[in-house]
């Protein structure tokens, strides 16, 4: 056995307990979501479903309005991603490239906003959006999510922008490109991967957010997926775990795939400057 193979065995062996604990809920989700309701409430529990039953998914989508919840989540997450990118990209560019007074103060300000939990402010937030008549309005959440996830986006973008040498834009200016032209022809193509990763990260955060959505969206038809799923447990006479697990699976797997695809960049982005 090569030394790398032996090392791999040791590494995987050391990681195995935590890997099991992480994957255990997924196995549970999958196993339960594919079971018929009757099979859950028996005292003879098995991992393997007696038959692969897809009725839970159909039930969710057609009977319980889960499709609407997925759509609400999508609408809010896409909106929050666009809005936070729209304000974070210029701010990150200014922090990375321009000389201006109060740069440090702005950075500290962002840091402090990141440390204030939305839940500490939830009463104030609720009252503010109620004042504007925006309870049950997905746009309230788009605004709130953008504001809370913007700071992280600015950090990630700035650390990415900082890796693009200033020389390149200077060379473009000397080649005769205007500031705007240099931004579009030279800067933008180079920072696109960073912008994409940041946007996906914001999307995932917004998709997963629970407390603000729970408070601001009181109406069943406006609820997002995580809130809807949590409500499924509380409102029914008996908790239909098969339905809930099917819903969790549907809301989790696509986002987990997005996240897995960007995690490498995330590690790099954070080690570059996110924790500075």
């Amino acid at each position: 056995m090569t030394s790398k193979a032996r090392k791999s065995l040791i590494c995987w062996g050391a990681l195995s307990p935590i890997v099991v604990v992480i994957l255990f809920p997924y196995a549970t989700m999958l196993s339960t979501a594919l079971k018929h309701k009757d099979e859950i409430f028996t005292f003879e529990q098995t991992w393997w479903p007696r038959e692969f039953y897809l009725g839970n998914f159909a039930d969710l989508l057609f009977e319980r309005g889960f499709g609407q919840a997925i759509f609400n989540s999508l609408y809010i997450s896409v909106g929050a991603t666009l809005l936070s990118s729209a304000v974070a990209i210029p701010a990150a560019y200014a922090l990375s490239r321009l000389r201006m007074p109060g740069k440090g103060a702005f950075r500290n300000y962002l840091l402090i906003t990141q440390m204030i939990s939305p839940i500490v402010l939830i009463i104030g937030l609720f009252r503010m959006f109620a004042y504007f008549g925006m309870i049950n309005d997905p746009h309230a959440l788009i605004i709130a999510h953008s504001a809370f996830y913007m700071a992280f986006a600015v950090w990630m973008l700035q650390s990415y922008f900082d890796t693009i040498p200033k020389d390149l834009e200077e060379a473009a200016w000397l080649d005769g490109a205007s500031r705007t032209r240099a931004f579009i022809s030279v800067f933008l193509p180079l920072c696109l991967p960073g912008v994409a990763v940041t946007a996906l990260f914001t999307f995932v955060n917004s998709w997963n957010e629970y407390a603000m959505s729970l408070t601001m969206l009181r109406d069943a038809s406006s609820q997002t997926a995580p809130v809807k799923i949590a409500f499924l447990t509380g409102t029914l006479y008996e908790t239909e775990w098969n339905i809930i697990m099917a819903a969790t699976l549907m809301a989790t797997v696509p986002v987990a795939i997005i996240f897995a695809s960007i995690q490498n960049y995330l590690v790099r982005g954070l080690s570059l400057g996110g924790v500075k």
Partner: protein
Amino acid sequence: MTASTTTLVPPSPRGLRLSKAIPGALLLILPSLLLSAMVIGYPIFDVLRMSVADVNRFGRVLGFAGFDNFLAAFTDPIFLQSAWQTLIWTFCVVGGTVLISVPIAIILNEEFYGRTVARTIILLPWAVSLAMTALVWRFVVNGDFGTLNTTLSALGLPFDNFPWLADASTAFGIEILVGILVSMPFTVTIIMGGLTAIPDTLYEASRMDGARGLQGFRHITLPLLRPFLQIAVVLNVIYVFNSFPIIWIMTNGGPANRTDILITYVYKQAFGFGKLGTAAAGSVVMFAMLLAFSVLYLYMTRSREVQQ
């Protein structure tokens, strides 16, 4: 040359003067400032105002109340109990997270077969909504139908129908474990960032100097990881202190408020009992505690920069 590392002057395309470009820079950060000032700034003001006001259950401010709301909170035994439980919760989750994250990050930093897969699995809990993680775990540890008891029984252990969440201490324990699980990916990521910043030549040099076994870890890894660990601890303290969904969904603070923390207490006061004033006062207390942490964080990053 030092000059080439200085910040750029924004040369404007049509020969504008520098002084005109500075408002341009401010214009770029203005949208972000406005957005966060509205969504974060105003609620801060509102919560502060309500904490010293007499507020009815519909949010109408009836008058000035001085410190009555704070008094009401501090004389409520459940508030004090929640505060104590918040400290236990934060300490256990953050401590546990850091303890397991360091070895995990070190392993993931090694070269081995399937490392990418391992990294993806370890970071997976980060991708999932806390609400859904909490929900799935609530089912996993369900006494009657949960897969945990199924599995433990299958292994021959006496956990048939053991009601994990019915007892306060096991419930809180499980919530802490779930808290550790979801805080771990972010922490591992930060520590991995710190590890990749340590050049291999340092370990080679320390071996030449006679370092053996774990001495390299003790004398090279830990000291150089320190700033990253500090940041991981402080950020985790803030996130965990504020963590709402795990406890809210798994036990709702029960049984008998034995798993309530400040954030669930505040939420119940506001949206359960309509005591907006008490809730606002509780928020202010939490806010003050967090501000202390924020200052600590800034202080720590500052001193790190000075060291460098």
